[in-house]
């Protein structure tokens, strides 16, 4: 766990041994954190401890190892509840990630949807928070209404009160866009949705890497995030839901670990979150995620945010200096997360990112699993730089220098 009193970018970087490696003989400048962040050593140690000292199943064994693994697993649930400021750990469901969480909620809610019901989703959603709702439209006859975007890709909420009607059952939006870095005005959306009796599901995958979230203050109904984008392991995520809502939902997957009693004729399910964790869960990953969330909660977030904004300002200034560069999202660093997607005239993002790799700079190029947004903006792909707490000025400068090399090659 980090020492909040002695925080510095360099002390933080020392907790990420992967940053020591080189790529093509160059120092690694990893700026694809919106896809996957690196994990600090404490996460690896927590998972290794489980594997080497008490590997066993959870919620089953009465022997010592089983008790220890169950305790560690439930401790991770407590960490997740604390990280999200949930009212109880009973509101936390461990899943394989945000995609699974959205599908879980879509399936479970659909059991009570009927033709004519409406779901509101934004054009800017990641496919994982878009396709499940499209499927419901096809399967249940619900109408899917879209929140449009402004020219910079941020949500256009100006007509929201006409989009969310009394037929709306659910609004599903991301907390922070994985493409534009724009921060969604959740309070505004939640206010309108709840007034019409609709629930609000939030894809928080890009928000949780930037500090703890308060689901009670946001007044949302469901919130999901992924471990691998939040300094934790891959293959694990968290779905939070209000307890009374979880109790009312039918199961998603069925099997061991989610039942009260099974007879030859019927099954009685556990209530609340336990109903949704069928089968042996990803125990090591959950324990690793718990360590990551503890680590995140121990960081001095005001200082970190100031630091991220400083890096963002440096990057923004450099990007906006490039002729023919179109930046998506807000231009003020105080009104956005440190995720920067850009399109350079006559330079395709895959070519840009390919050449950046020569200089050890790792950026994502492509549609970022947000093709409806790309279509709305008249783009097929963008290059995306996304900053994590371990990035430093050297990473930003390396990107900007390498971008100039890219332009020399491609233009």
């Amino acid at each position, binding site marked *: 766990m980090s020492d909040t009193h002695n925080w510095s970018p360099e002390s933080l970087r020392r907790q990420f041994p992967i940053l020591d490696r080189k790529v093509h003989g160059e120092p690694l400048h990893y700026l694809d954190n919106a896809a996957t962040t690196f994990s600090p050593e404490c996460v690896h140690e927590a998972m290794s401890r489980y594997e080497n000292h008490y590997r066993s199943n959870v919620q089953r064994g009465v022997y010592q190892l089983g008790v220890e693994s169950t305790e560690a697993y439930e401790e991770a649930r407590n960490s997740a509840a604390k990280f999200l400021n949930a009212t109880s750990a009973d509101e936390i469901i461990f899943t394989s990630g945000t995609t699974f969480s959205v599908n879980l909620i879509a399936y479970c809610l659909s059991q009570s949807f009927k033709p004519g019901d409406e779901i509101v989703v934004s054009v800017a959603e990641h496919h994982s928070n878009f396709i499940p709702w499209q499927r419901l439209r096809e399967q249940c006859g619900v109408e899917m209404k879209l929140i449009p975007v402004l020219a910079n890709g941020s949500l256009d909420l100006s007509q929201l009160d006409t989009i969310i009607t009394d037929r709306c059952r659910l609004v599903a939006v991301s907390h922070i866009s994985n493409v534009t870095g724009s921060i969604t005005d959740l309070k505004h959306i939640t206010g309108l949705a709840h007034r019409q009796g609709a629930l609000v599901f939030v894809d928080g995958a890009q928000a949780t890497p930037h500090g703890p979230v308060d689901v009670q203050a946001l007044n949302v109904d469901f919130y999901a995030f992924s471990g691998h984008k939040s300094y934790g392991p891959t293959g694990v995520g968290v779905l939070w839901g209000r307890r009374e809502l979880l109790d009312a939902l039918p199961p998603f997957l069925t099997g061991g670990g989610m039942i009260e009693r099974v007879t030859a004729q019927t099954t009685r399910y556990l209530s609340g979150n336990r109903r949704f964790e069928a089968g042996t869960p990803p125990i090591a990953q959950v324990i690793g995620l718990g360590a990551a969330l503890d680590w995140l909660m121990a960081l001095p977030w005001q200082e970190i945010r100031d630091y991220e904004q400083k890096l963002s300002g440096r990057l923004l200034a450099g990007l906006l200096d490039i002729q023919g560069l179109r930046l998506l999202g807000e231009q003020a660093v105080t009104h956005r997360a440190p995720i920067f997607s850009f399109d350079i005239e006559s330079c*395709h*993002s*895959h*070519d840009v990112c*390919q050449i950046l790799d*020569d200089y050890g700079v790792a950026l994502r190029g492509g*549609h970022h699993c947000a093709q409806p947004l790309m279509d709305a903006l008249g783009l097929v*792909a963008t290059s995306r730089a996304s900053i994590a707490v371990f990035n430093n000025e050297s990473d930003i400068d390396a990107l900007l220098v390498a971008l100039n090399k890219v332009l020399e090659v*491609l233009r």
Partner: protein
Amino acid sequence: MSRGLYDGEIKALAASQIAPQSLPGPDLQISVDNPFCGDRIDLQLNIEAGRVTALAQDIRACMLCQASANVVAKSAIGLSRDDIEAVSIELTAMLKGNDSDCWPPVDWESLALFEPVSRHKSRHGCVTLPFTALLKALPDTP
């Protein structure tokens, strides 16, 4: 390393607009996407007796895909599906690093420019997408 991927010849090939973007009365048309990156080709063809007589394509893609599409536009006219499939098989083999005495195929010599792409597995689909589009559009040879 990207050395060789963006040489002058590839850049010139990508920049050359060999085919029009659309045909007045296409016999066949298809859109294909590279799911990895979102590259897209809208392809239109005229055919006669199973052979390509005219080709148009609207390409929103990376430089490698554009260059490859222009090779296709230059060399596919007059060929049947079987002819094009044979070239596609040779191209895929080259990208996978398999040596062949038939490489580069006759009349498709500019495909040799893509040899450096063989080192970049994530980019193979960029080069093969124009062939995928053509093969999807053309009916099987009777």
